[in-house]
C-alpha cells in the first residue's frame, strides 16, 4: 500500500493471532481494530488514477479521482496523477437508506439493544444518543463496501429521529453526516408496539392525526413565518440564560450547522422555534408540522401506504415512505404525490399479512411509474448485502444504473447531502472493487471515507486470522 498521506495508516497492521478469550474479543476488539481517528480534514487527501469510475448517477467515466481536505476536487480523465488502480472499479460505496446499525449489538441479548424506546410516541428520541460508533457490525459492513447509513429507530408509532452516519469515526461526531435526518413514523403492524400503543390501524392513524393536529401553531401563528421568526428571536434572547431544554436544542443546531450541507440556516432556525411551554417531543412534532423536519413514514401494505399519503397531503408534510413492500399496487398515487421511497428490503416475501403482494419487481414497477427511490437493507449485521439487494432489483427489471444510484447517491440526495456521488464538492468517499458492485462475486478491496483510507480489518477478519492455523 503506497497511498498518500492518510492511506498509509493501516499498512503495517497485522491482525493479532493471539489466543485471547472471547470476552476480551468482545470487549477489546473494538479498540484493537485500530480504526484511525478521523483527524483534521486538511490531512485527508489522496489521488487515484486509471480507474473505471461509476459516478453513482448512472454515468461511467475512465480516469482518476482527487480528494483534498476530505472533499472530491476533481474526477475523470483530467486526474492523471496519484496511485494507478489499473482500471479497477471505483464507485461511491453503499449508503444504506434505513437500518439500525450501531443501535443493536446482539439481537437476542436485550441489554445490547437500543433500537426502540418504550413509549409508542417518542418524537424526542434521537438515535445519535444511542449510536455506538464502535459497534463491531460497523467495520464488518465497511469491509464489504458500506460507507454510510441512515440509522433509524425501530417499531413505534412515532419512533424518534434518525441520523445519517459514516461507517468510519471513533465518535458520533466524527461519524455524523446529518442529524436529525427525519422523524420516523410507523403505520401497519410495526406501529402498534410500545407503551400506550394503539392496537389497530385505525387507532394508529387517529393517534397520528391527533398528534399532528395538536402540533399546529396557535391561530395567530398559522402560516405567519415572519411573526414566528420575530418571536423566536425575542425568545431566544431570553432563553439563553435559563432553559435546560434549549441547551439540547442548541446542540441540535450545532449539528445542523456543522454537518448538513444544505439548508443550514433553515434547519438551524427550525431547531429552536416555538420553545417555551412545549415538551421536547411537542417541539419536534411542530417542526414536522411546519415542514422543517422530514417525516419518514414506514408502511408496507398498500392500504397503509395510502393512509400515509393522505396524512402527508392533509398536513402538507415533507415526507418519504419507508419500506413500501406493496408499493407497486399504489405506484401511481406515490408518483403523483412526489414522495420519495426508501424501499426495502427488496427481498420482502409474501410471508406476512402486511406483505401478501410483495414482489421482486416492486422497485422496477415503482421506477417505471416515476417514483424516486433509494434501496435500503434494514438491520445491522448484514446490511453489507445491500448491493445484492440492488442487484436483485436490477434482475427484476430496474435499470442497473438506477439500481446502483439507489444504493449510492439517491438516499443521501433526498436529504440534501453531498455524499454518494463521485463529483467535485462531494465527500471524498469511495470503494475500490474488482468488478460490478451489483454482482455477488465482486470483492471490495479498499475503502476510503471522507478522505481517509479505512483499514480492511474487522472483528471477522481478526477471527479468520486467529484461526487460520489451528493451535
Amino acid at each position, binding site marked *: 500500500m503506497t497511498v498518500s498521506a492518510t492511506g498509509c495508516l493501516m499498512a503495517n497492521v497485522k491482525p493479532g493471532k493471539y489466543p485471547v478469550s*472471547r470476552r476480551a474479543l*468482545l470487549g477489546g476488539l473494538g479498540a484493537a481494530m485500530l480504526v484511525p481517528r478521523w483527524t483534521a480534514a486538511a490531512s485527508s487527501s489522496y489521488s487515484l488514477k486509471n480507474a473505471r469510475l461509476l459516478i453513482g448517477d448512472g454515468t461511467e467515466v475512465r480516469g482518476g479521482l482527487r480528494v483534498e481536505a476530505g472533499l472530491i476536487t476533481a474526477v475523470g480523465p483530467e486526474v492523471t496523477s496519484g496511485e494507478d488502480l489499473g482500471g479497477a472499479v471505483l464507485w461511491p460505496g453503499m449508503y444504506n437508506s434505513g437500518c439500525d446499525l450501531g443501535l443493536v*449489538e*446482539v*439481537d*437476542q*441479548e436485550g441489554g445490547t439493544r437500543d433500537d426502540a424506546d418504550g413509549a409508542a410516541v417518542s418524537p424526542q428520541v434521537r438515535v445519535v444518543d444511542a449510536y455506538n460508533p464502535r459497534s463491531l*457490525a460497523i467495520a464488518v459492513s465497511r469491509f464489504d463496501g458500506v460507507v454510510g447509513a441512515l440509522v433509524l429507530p425501530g417499531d413505534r408509532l412515532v419512533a424518534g429521529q434518525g441520523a445519517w452516519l459514516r461507517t468510519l469515526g471513533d465518535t458520533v461526531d466524527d461519524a455524523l453526516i446529518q442529524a436529525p435526518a427525519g422523524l420516523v413514523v410507523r403505520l401497519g403492524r410495526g406501529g402498534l408496539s410500545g407503551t400506550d400503543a394503539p392496537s389497530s390501524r385505525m387507532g394508529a392513524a387517529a393517534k397520528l392525526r391527533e398528534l399532528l393536529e395538536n402540533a399546529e401553531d396557535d391561530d395567530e401563528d398559522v402560516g405567519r413565518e415572519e411573526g414566528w421568526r420575530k418571536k423566536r428571536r425575542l425568545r431566544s434572547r431570553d432563553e439563553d440564560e435559563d432553559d435546560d431544554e434549549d441547551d439540547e436544542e442548541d446542540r441540535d443546531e450545532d449539528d445542523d450547522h456543522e454537518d448538513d450541507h444544505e439548508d443550514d440556516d433553515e434547519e438551524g432556525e427550525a431547531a429552536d422555534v416555538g420553545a417555551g411551554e412545549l415538551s421536547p417531543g411537542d417541539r419536534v412534532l411542530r417542526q414536522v408540522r411546519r415542514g422543517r423536519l422530514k417525516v419518514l413514514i414506514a408502511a408496507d401494505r398498500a392500504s397503509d401506504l395510502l393512509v400515509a399519503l393522505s396524512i402527508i397531503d392533509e398536513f402538507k408534510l415533507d415526507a418519504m415512505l419507508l419500506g413500501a413492500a406493496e408499493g407497486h399496487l399504489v405506484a401511481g398515487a406515490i408518483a403523483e404525490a412526489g414522495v420519495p421511497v426508501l424501499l426495502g428490503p427488496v*427481498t420482502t*416475501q*409474501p*410471508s*406476512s*399479512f402486511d406483505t*401478501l*403482494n410483495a*414482489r*421482486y*419487481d416492486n422497485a422496477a414497477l415503482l421506477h417505471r411509474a416515476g417514483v424516486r427511490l433509494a434501496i435500503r437493507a434494514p438491520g*445491522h*449485521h*448484514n446490511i*453489507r*448485502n445491500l448491493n*445484492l439487494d440492488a*442487484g*436483485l432489483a*436490477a*434482475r*427484476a427489471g430496474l435499470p442497473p444504473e438506477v439500481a446502483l444510484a439507489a444504493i449510492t447517491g439517491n438516499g443521501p440526495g433526498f436529504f440534501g447531502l453531498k455524499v454518494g456521488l463521485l463529483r467535485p464538492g462531494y465527500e471524498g468517499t469511495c470503494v475500490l472493487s474488482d468488478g460490478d458492485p*451489483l*454482482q*455477488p*462475486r*465482486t*470483492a471490495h478491496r479498499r475503502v476510503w471515507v471522507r478522505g481517509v483510507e479505512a483499514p480492511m480489518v474487522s472483528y*471477522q*477478519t481478526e*477471527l*479468520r486470522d486467529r*484461526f*487460520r492455523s*489451528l493451535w
Partner: protein
Amino acid sequence: MWFLTFVALAAPGAAAAPSAAPASPVQPARLVIDNATVLTISGPVIVDGTVIIEGGRIREVGSGLPLPAGFPVVDARGGYLMPGIIDVHSHMGVYSWPGGSGTDDGNEAVEAFTPRVWAGDSFDPEDPALARARAGGVTTIQVLPGSANLVGGLSAILKLRPARTIEPMLFAGAPRGIKMAVGENPKRVYRNAPDDDQLQTRMGLFAALRARFQAALDYRTARTRKEPPARDLDAETLLDVIDGKIRVNLHGYRAYDVVGFYRVADAFGFSVAIFHHALDAYKVRDILVAHGTAVATWPDWWGFKLEAFDGIPWNAQMVHEAGGTAILHSDSADHVQRLNFEAAKLVRYGMSESEALRTITLNPAIGLGLADRVGAIAPGRDADLVLYDRHPFDIYTQVQLTWIDGAPVYDRERDGVPDGQR
C-alpha cells in the same frame, strides 16, 4: 434476450404442454437437453453438452452425443445446466406462509425430547413458498422440525414435486433424518419450563441428552424381559439413532457445543451427519472432519445471538480447505429461492467457483446420504436439473426450467415469474 425453444416434441406428455396446471408429479420422462453448458459438478464442465434422460434418470452426459430417436429435445443453447439445488435445512410447509400462530407448526415444544414426531405430519404442501423455491431451481429439501427441543423429531426429505399431499413428494429411498439441537435455543425455551422439564445450562442439556440415550438402552434391555414395558416410540427412535439407522442433523453454533455433543455421541456410538448453522465450525474444523460431519452453514449470517456472534464469511472455505464437506443451507423460505447467489458470495471470500457450486448441489446430497442419487449430472443419477440463461452466479441469471425426475416442475414460459404469486 435468450429464451428457450422446444423442438421435436415427439413423446406426448413428456414435456408438458403449456398450461396453468402444474406438471403432473412422478412422470418418468424421456428427454434430451442439448447444447447447454453442463455444470456436472462431479466432473468437468461440458461446453455444448448433451444430457439424455430416460425413465426419470440421466442415461448419458457428454459432448456431441448422437440424439436418440423419439426423444423430445430441449435446445438449451446459451444456457447453463446444473443439478437441482438441494437445501438440507428447510422449514417450508411447517411454517407455511403467511406466517402466524395458525401456521406455526415447527416446534413441538412441550418437552425437550420429541423424537416421536415427524415434520411431515406438520407439512402443508400448499405453502406458496414451495413454488418460489422450484422457480429458484431447488429440487430436494429436508424439512426439519425447529430447534426448541434437544431432540426435535424426524425430518421429511422431499422432492419439490407439485402435489396436493406430501406423499408424492417423499424422496423414495432417502435415509431417515432426525433433528437435534444444542445451545441457546433449548436453553431459552426450557429455562422457565415446569419442574421436571426445566433446563437452564449447557451442562444441563448434555446431562439430559445422556440420560435419554441411556434410558433408550435400558428400554431395549427391558423389552427382552418376560414382561416387557409398553412400546415407547421415543426410545425406539433413539435406539435407531444409536444403531446408525437415522442420520443426525445437529443444530448448533458454538465450537464447544458441537464438541460437547460429540462427547455424548461418541459415548453412545453414533455419529453426526450434518452440523447445521455451525458458525464456529472453522475453529474446530479438524475435529468435525475427523468425525465425518458435514458442515451446513450460511455464507454470511451472524450476530443475531451471542452464540452466532463469531460467524465469518470464510467459514465454508476454511472447512473445505481442511478436507470437510461444506454445505450452504437456507433455513429460510426467502433465501432458498436464490441459494445460487448465496453460493456466489463464497467466491468473494476466496472459494473457487466449482467448489462454491458444490455447496448447494453435491455436498448437501452427501450430507443427506443421497450422493448416489442427486447432486451431480452423471449417468444413473435422478434427472433433477435446473437450466439457467446465464451462469448461476451472475446476478442477472434467470431459471428457465427446473426438472425433477425428468419432468418439468417449473417452466418460466409456462409458469411465468413467481413475482406476484402467493
